């Protein structure tokens, strides 16, 4: 039997800048990482961003960035020493014995080349197939990757594929060399749950059929729970915890494993928060859409981005808007902040103008055009890279032409402290901050104008699970403290469930369902909603396992409550998650 992948005591370090002293100044990237993937085994490598997961995978392929070098340790695949392999040997391994999936599949294809020509490369290099044979094999690979029309996909250019299709095509390319090991670096982080499940099932099928070893890198524990045999948890360049999936997910021993679990366990916390704030009796509508239609494409037969959508947001409510990409979610957001005007229908804003003083909020609400604020998906794009953050935050205040420089500074510092950041950060440029910090700052910037409604358009989708959790909790706190009404636009079922009072589902530009959150998740009405909920159920936010579990709440309870309550009473934040842990 083959040995599979064995990584032992791997140390990676950042090469010291030229001119520096001896090796002592080299910064460690990985410190003594060890893990194994046996043939046919599905191993999940889990960790927050920056924990060294990707570097581990790249070192297996010998594709580390030039400034990072392997200092010591060993990597072997079926007895071959990968660190000692020559360039030519590595080229035979890459795409041959080792296949790789990447996080951004569309960017991993050469935009000038068809999918078919991408497939032809490994088929020729690793299997010596050309011409008709290669074409037949390519079509078979695409069929195995779940395409019903492989001929068309083979002829397609990367930009013609959706994210999910691109990832399946990438899987076909990765399997072309008949690998014994598949490295998957967050292949589904950018996809919604339905597509994620599809990809995972495809990978799992290949694993069973070909005895493929899978190293699946993710920050999302929920993803791996149903598929992984073993889980390896990484943090700060070290393996913190390792074991059978059931053991690690059921009884996490280390703080970082618990934090990751907790981050995925959005469901339970929401119930607690809702319980804490019973006074949230949603009252009147403050935003109302009536029969709104918006069309961008001009041609006949083009589907409107939004069609006849009627929807309202009540004061003090969190409304979740669910939908896959292309469903019209972002168009809805743009209409609500008045960046776009509807072609048909009306949008009524009955905002609590001028009552800010009663709230003790300081500046009065109702500065025209600022009552509804928007937080975007990609925090790095939301700031001018050449402006210091303070200047970016000051800009909207300057437009109001009121107040003094000191007053503005005070307000900005207060807003930054409100989002739990240090005002010193404001001296930096956007590129010097993490995604989580910047996303908090976009929220701070939106709050500076004291809006009544905050629209979060996939505001946490680009963040890792732990950071996402923190930002969501921040939004919940602001919602409670400021009576802020929120519209959470997302494709992530867990986020929607965690945050919302009501859920609206957009599908191909139409509002297909609007219901209370618990009602929606218990009994979705529309076909598309059922599909979404079913996909979320297959990968519940908290689940111990390979065991399918129907009742989410009970499952979370059993897994988290039972195991944590005894060992670390009082200290664990997990206890907050489950309202009444079994002692």
């Amino acid at each position, binding site marked *: 039997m083959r040995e599979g992948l064995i990584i032992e005591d791997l140390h990676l370090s950042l090469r010291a800048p030229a001119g520096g002293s001896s090796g002592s100044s080299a910064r460690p990237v990985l410190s003594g990482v060890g893990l194994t993937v046996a043939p046919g085994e599905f191993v999940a490598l889990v960790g927050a961003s920056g924990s060294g997961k990707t570097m581990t995978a790249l070192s297996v*392929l010998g*594709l580390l960035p030039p400034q990072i070098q392997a200092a010591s340790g060993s990597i072997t695949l079926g007895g071959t020493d990968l660190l000692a392999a020559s*360039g*030519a040997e590595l*080229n*035979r*391994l*890459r*795409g*041959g014995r080792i296949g*790789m999936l*990447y996080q*951004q599949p569309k*960017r*991993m*294809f*050469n*935009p*000038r080349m068809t999918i078919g020509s*991408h497939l032809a*490369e*490994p088929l020729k*290099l*690793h299997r010596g197939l050309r011409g008709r044979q290669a074409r037949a094999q390519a079509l078979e690979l695409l069929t195995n990757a779940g395409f019903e029309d492989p001929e068309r996909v083979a002829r397609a*250019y990367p*930009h*013609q594929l959706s994210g999910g299709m691109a990832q399946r095509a*990438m899987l076909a*390319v990765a399997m*072309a*060399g008949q690998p014994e090991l598949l490295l998957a670096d967050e292949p589904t982080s950018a996809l919604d749950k339905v597509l994620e499940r599809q990809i995972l099932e495809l990978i799992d099928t290949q694993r069973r059929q070909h005895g493929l070893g899978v190293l699946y890198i993710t920050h999302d524990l929920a993803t791996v729970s149903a598929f992984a045999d073993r889980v390896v948890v990484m943090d700060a360049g070290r393996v913190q915890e390792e074991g059978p999936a059931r053991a690690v997910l059921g009884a996490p021993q280390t703080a970082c494993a618990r934090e990751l679990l907790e981050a995925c366990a959005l469901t339970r916390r929401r119930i607690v928060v809702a319980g804490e704030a019973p006074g949230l009796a949603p009252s009147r509508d403050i935003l109302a859409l009536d029969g709104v239609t918006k069309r961008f494409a001009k041609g006949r037969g083009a589907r409107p981005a939004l069609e006849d959508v009627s929807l309202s947001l009540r004061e003090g409510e969190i409304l979740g808007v669910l939908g896959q990409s292309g469903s019209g979610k972002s168009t809805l957001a743009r209409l609500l902040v008045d960046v776009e005007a509807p072609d048909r229908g009306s949008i009524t804003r009955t905002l609590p103008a001028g009552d800010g003083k009663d709230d003790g909020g300081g500046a009065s609400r109702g500065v025209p055009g600022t009552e509804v604020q928007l937080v975007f998906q990609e925090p790095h794009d939301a700031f001018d890279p050449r402006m210091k953050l303070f200047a970016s935050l000051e800009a909207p205040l300057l437009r109001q032409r009121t107040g003094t420089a000191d007053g503005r500074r005070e307000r900005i510092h207060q807003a930054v402290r409100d989002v739990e950041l240090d005002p010193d950060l404001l001296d930096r440029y956007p590129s010097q901050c993490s995604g989580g910090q910047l996303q908090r700052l976009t929220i701070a910037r939106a709050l500076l104008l004291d809006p009544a409604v905050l629209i979060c358009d996939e505001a946490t989708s680009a963040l890792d699970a732990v950071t996402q959790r923190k930002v969501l909790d921040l939004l919940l706190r602001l919602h409670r403290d400021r009576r802020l009404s929120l519209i959470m636009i997302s494709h992530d079922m867990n986020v929607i469930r965690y945050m919302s009072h009501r859920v609206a589902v957009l599908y191909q530009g139409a509002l297909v369902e609007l219901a209370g959150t618990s009602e929606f998740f218990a009994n979705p009405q529309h076909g598309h909603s059922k599909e979404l909920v079913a996909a979320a159920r297959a990968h519940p936010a908290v689940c111990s396992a390979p065991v399918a579990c129907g009742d989410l709440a009970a499952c979370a309870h059993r897994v988290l409550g039972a195991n944590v309550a005894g060992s670390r009473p009082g200290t664990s934040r997990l206890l907050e998650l489950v309202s009444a842990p079994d002692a």
Partner: protein
Amino acid sequence: MMLFLARRTAALLVAVLLASFVVFLIPYVTPGDPVRKIIRSRVAGDAIDDSAVQALSAQLGLQDPLWTQYLRWLGRFASGDMGLSYTSRTPVVDQVLPALWVTLSLVVMTLAVAALIAVILGIAAALNEGRAADKAITAVSQAFIAMPEYWLAPMLVLVFALELSVLPSAGWEGPTSAVLPVAVLALRPASHFTSAVREGMLDALGADHVTAARGRGLSYFHTVRKHVIPNGLLPLTTLAAVWFAGLLGGSVIVEVIFAIPGMGRLLFDGVLNSDIPLAQGAVVVVVGLAVLLTTAADLVHGLLNPQVRMRHA
């Protein structure tokens, strides 16, 4: 693609028509009566006989309404008749076509040389990013991009024609006579192209799909040849077409300095002698060609980039 082509062709025609109208108007909006200018250029003495002015105006059809003149001018132009040169009294077409041929060969040679240099140096710089070779290439190309032709041309003539006597200093006979003008003209586009190729190559090298190609087992050389160079050179096509158009009109200085009988020289002479038909003919041909080339560049770019190609399909 056909619709794309039709749309581009229509835009091209409109641009040429607009340009032709502006060119047609030039003698009318510049100060001084063109007829008097013509007479003054031929007759010695200050006094100009009014009857002579009248007679010449009538002869040239200058008393008709402006739009009639424009349409007549345009109609003649479209049928290949650019009128008679005021100075030589021969058809402008017979002067423009040989000159166009000379300028086209000069510009094409220039661009070929510039592109060749740029591809070699740009790729070398990008593949050695940050090392001495890259720094040297970048520094030299940035220095040359700012070097004016009217300074460089005399310098090269001084060294190669007068001091070393290895190349002719002027004229347009035989391949050796093209060396200095092409060298002078190619220097700036070569510098510009080099930095463009370097940037394009660096972008292409850093692209995620290049990492993925290595991950499929392609060797470094194979990856660079197949996935980096073709993508990295893409921006050069558009840039080359823009320079092509620019050099058609921009070769004036070099043509005058080296006494090359090209379009620039013709235009220069036409303007200097108030030979309006000659100047107009030369300008319209240059403008028309420039617009045509820019359109061609867009089409080539479209053909090379599937994303553009399919958006217009």
